[in-house]
């Protein structure tokens, strides 16, 4: 079954290839949102 888990992760990664552009976009957006939130919190302190 451990081989199956490895293969399953590979399949999921393969499935992600079609929309990697969007994953990366939202990850980048998330980072920016967190930065803004942290800045707001530190300016409030």
């Amino acid at each position, binding site marked *: *079954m451990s081989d*199956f*888990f490895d*293969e*399953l992760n*590979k*399949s*999921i990664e*393969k*499935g*992600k290839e*079609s*929309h990697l552009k*969007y*994953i990366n*976009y*939202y*990850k*980048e*957006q*998330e980072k*920016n*949102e*967190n930065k*803004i*939130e942290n800045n707001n919190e530190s300016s409030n302190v």
Partner: protein
Amino acid sequence: MDTHENRAEEVLNIYNESENKIKSDAIISRALADKITTEAIDEKVDAQLNSIKVQIHEINPNFKDDKKYYEIAKQTIQDSMKRYEDNLLTLSKPFDDQIEKLILEKAEIETSIAGDFLAENYLKENHENSEEENKKKVSKESKERIKEIDKKIKDLNDQKDEAIRKAMEEGNGAIQVNVKKIKVFKKIKRFFMVKLNSYKVIVKDVINPFNERIDKFNVS
């Protein structure tokens, strides 16, 4: 937390939940295939063992008291049962391998479909609608393929179950659970069997025919 400011986090959370569900579903499907194999083999091995016990009892109900030959017969039957079980595992493996491939293909397609959610959000946010129709078309084809895969997995599980149950059986392939089918020896014959040496009779009438069925079995 300001929901507007954490829009990307929300979108990613929904996407990650989909990914986790895809993984769980795949693991459950794989475990179910294993369960079907294990249950069918266990049932068959138990039935075969019971059948042998009944046959030995018919030959000599007190065979257990003959410690020397009982231990020899027990060891021989255990070895045969091991080969019997190995044959069943060999038989089920190609079915389970095919099922596993289909499960992995399904996980890949579902992950790709989950990406449509990200794409739709992205296109709306960035006012890019040109790809949208094409995406929907691809998803429709993918969903049809998933339906096909589900049906194939079900069929393969059913075929595997049937193949295991029919393997190494005599005649119509029914599992040897029916005690009535076992040859009932007449009292007089049983008397001579006990006198002559039950072990020899057990080897000739029970163990050898069982081993023949195991040896004849060809997984193809």
